[in-house]
C-alpha cells in the first residue's frame, strides 16, 4: 500500500475507494452461507432440529454489533451504551405492534422498523452532542449513563412498558400483508436476514465512501483531521445518529420476532455483550459483529449446556486472552493466517 505513483494522487484515492468497495468472493460466500442456514436449520432435513428462532436472535445481535462497529471500528468512539438505542427500538416496535392489535397501520412490521429507526436515531442525534466532548473515559461514562437512565425509565414507567415484566403479546401483522410470522421462525429468519442485509449494504456503502474515509481519519487523529478540513463534529454526530438508528432497527427486529420487549433488552449487559461480540469478531471489518454474534451464541449454547450459569467465566477468560494475545479478533486472526498462507505478508 505504499505510494508508488505519487504523480496521480487524486486517481489513487478514488481507485482505492473503488477497489475497497468491490464485493469479494468471501463476502458472497458469507451471504450464501447465511441463506443456506435457512435450509439446513429450517426443518427441511429430517433429524436436524429447527433453530431458526435462535438464528434470528443472532441476526439481531449481529446487527447491534454492526452498529457499534460503525461508531467504534470506524469513528473510534468507545461506547458502552449502544444497548440504549437497541432497547428503545425494541420498545417502540413492541408498543406499536401491541397497541395496533395485529392490524395494518400500527402493527405492520416494516412501519415498526421505520418508527424504531426514527426514534432511536433521534435519541442518538440528541445524545451525540454529549459524546463529542471529552476523553475515552468521559465518553464511556456518558454513554453508559444515558443507557442507565433509559433502562431506569423503562423499568419505572410501568403503565407504558409493563415494568420489570416487559411487554407481552406483541403481535405483528403479516409482512407486506402476505407473510405471517410462524411458530418455527421461517418468516422471522428470512425477514431478519433481509433487514440485516439492507442495513449491512447501507453501512458498507457508507464506510467505503469519502465520508467513511473521513471517519477513519478522525479515528486516526482527530486534530489532524480537523486541520485538513474534515468537519469532525458534524461527521461524528452523523455516524452516531446513523448507528443509533441501526441499533434501533436491531432492537425492533428482536421485539418483533420474539413477540416481546423486556428491560433485559435495554440493560447494561446488552451493551457489554454487543461490544464483546464486536471485539471478539474483529472491529473495523463490518463482518466482525456478524461473525462474533454467531460464535458468541454458539459458545453460549455449548458452554451453557455443560455448566449452565458459569459460562460467564469462560466468556471472561476468552475476553482476557483476546485482549492479551490477539489483535483484531477472529477476523484479524484469519487475515493474519491468510496473509502468511499466500505470502502476501507485506514487510515494510
Amino acid at each position, binding site marked *: 500500500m505504499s505510494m508508488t505513483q505519487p504523480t496521480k494522487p487524486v486517481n489513487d484515492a478514488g481507485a482505492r475507494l473503488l477497489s475497497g468497495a468491490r464485493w469479494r468472493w468471501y463476502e458472497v460466500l458469507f451471504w450464501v452461507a447465511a441463506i443456506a442456514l435457512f435450509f439446513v436449520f429450517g426443518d427441511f432435513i429430517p433429524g436436524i432440529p429447527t433453530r431458526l428462532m435462535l438464528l434470528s436472535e443472532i441476526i439481531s445481535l449481529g446487527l447491534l454489533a454492526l452498529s457499534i462497529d460503525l461508531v467504534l471500528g470506524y469513528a473510534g468512539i468507545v461506547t458502552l451504551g449502544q444497548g440504549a438505542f437497541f432497547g428503545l427500538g425494541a420498545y417502540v416496535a413492541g408498543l406499536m405492534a401491541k397497541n395496533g392489535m395485529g392490524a395494518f397501520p400500527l402493527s405492520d412490521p416494516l412501519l415498526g422498523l421505520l418508527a424504531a429507526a426514527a426514534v432511536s436515531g433521534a435519541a442518538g442525534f440528541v445524545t451525540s452532542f454529549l459524546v463529542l466532548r471529552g476523553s475515552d473515559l*468521559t465518553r464511556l*461514562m456518558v454513554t453508559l449513563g444515558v443507557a442507565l*437512565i433509559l433502562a431506569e425509565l423503562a423499568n419505572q414507567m410501568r403503565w407504558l412498558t409493563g415494568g420489570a415484566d416487559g411487554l407481552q403479546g406483541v403481535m405483528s401483522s403479516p409482512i407486506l400483508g402476505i407473510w405471517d410470522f410462524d411458530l418455527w421462525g421461517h418468516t422471522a429468519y428470512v425477514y431478519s436476514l433481509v433487514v440485516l442485509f439492507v442495513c449491512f449494504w447501507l453501512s458498507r456503502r457508507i464506510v467505503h465512501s469519502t465520508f467513511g474515509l473521513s471517519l477513519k481519519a478522525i479515528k486516526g487523529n482527530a486534530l489532524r483531521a480537523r486541520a485538513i478540513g474534515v468537519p469532525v463534529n458534524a461527521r461524528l454526530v452523523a455516524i452516531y445518529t446513523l448507528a443509533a438508528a441501526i441499533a434501533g432497527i436491531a432492537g425492533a427486529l428482536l421485539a418483533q420476532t420474539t413477540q416481546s420487549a423486556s428491560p433485559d433488552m435495554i440493560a447494561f449487559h446488552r451493551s457489554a455483550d454487543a461490544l464483546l461480540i464486536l471485539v471478539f469478531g474483529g472491529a473495523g471489518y463490518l463482518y466482525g459483529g456478524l461473525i462474533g454474534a454467531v460464535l458468541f451464541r454458539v459458545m453460549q449454547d455449548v458452554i451453557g449446556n455443560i455448566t449452565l450459569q458459569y459460562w460467564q*467465566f469462560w466468556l471472561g477468560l476468552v475476553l482476557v486472552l*483476546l*485482549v492479551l494475545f490477539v489483535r483484531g479478533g477472529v477476523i484479524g486472526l484469519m487475515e493474519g493466517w491468510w496473509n502468511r498462507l499466500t505470502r502476501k505478508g507485506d514487510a515494510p
Partner: protein
Amino acid sequence: MLTILFDGVAYGMLLFVLAIGLCVTLGLMNFINLAHGAFAMAGGYLTIVMMNRYGISFYWGLPAAFVFSAILGAVLERTLYVHLYTKSHLDQVLFSIGLVFMATAVVDYFMGANQQTINLPPALEGRVNFLGASIGVYRIFTIVLCGLLTIGLQFVLAKTRFGSRLRAAVDDGRVARGMGIDVTKIFALTFAVGSGLAGLGGALSTGIISMDPTFPLKYMIYFLIVISVGGTTTITGPFFASLLLGVADVAGKYYAPAVGGFIIYTIMVAVLILRPQGLFTKASR
C-alpha cells in the same frame, strides 16, 4: 432526617474507601480498571467466609480483607495488568470487564448466587440516640474508621516522601521518571494498597449492604460516578464526591424510591457534560 444524613455520610465514606484506589490508579497510569469492584468483593467474601464458616471475629476480618485484596491486587498487577498500560482504552475496558465476568462466575461457583450477610459483633449492633436521631452503632464505626483512613491517606500523600513522589508521578509521569522516580514501582505499590482498601471497604460493606456475585458490576457505576464528579488529581475531590453521592443515594432511596437511581445518573451525565474534568478539580490540564 438526621438519621438519613448520618446513614448517607456512612455510606459515602464507605464508597470513598472502595473507590479511592481506582481514582489514584486512573490518575497515575490513565488506566481504566472496571474490575476494581472485584477486589472489594474478594475482601467482602473473605470476611464472610472467615466469620460464617470458621467463626473468626469480625475485627480480624477487616485487616485480613485488606491484606488479602492487596496481595491479590499486587499479583494481578504484576502478571496481567502490566501488559495493558500501553494498550488502548478499549482494550483496557474489555480486559477488565472480562476479569469482572470471571470473578463473578468464580464467586458464584464457590459461594452461590444468593445474597450473603454477616452477624455483626454485639458491640457494633444496636442504635444510639444522638441529637434526637436514632443512629446505628455500626454506622458510627464505619464513619470513624473511614475517617481515620482518609486522614491517614491525606497525611501520607501530603507529608511523606512517598506521597510527594506519587503526586509528582500523577502530575506528569514522564517528567517524574526523568527525575529518577521509579514510577513503575510506585504504581505497583499504589495499585496494591488501592486494591487492599477496596477489599477493606468490601468487608465493611458486608455490614451495611449485603454481598452477592453481582457486586462488582453493580458498584462499578458508583465508582465511575465518584471519579467523574471528584476528578483523579486529588483525594479530597473523590472524598466530597463520595459523600455527596452517599447522601444523595440514601436520601433518594428514602424520599423518592421510584426516581432515586434516575437522579444520580442524570447528575453524573450533567457533571460530565458541564465539567468533564470533575467538579472539584481546580484546573484542567
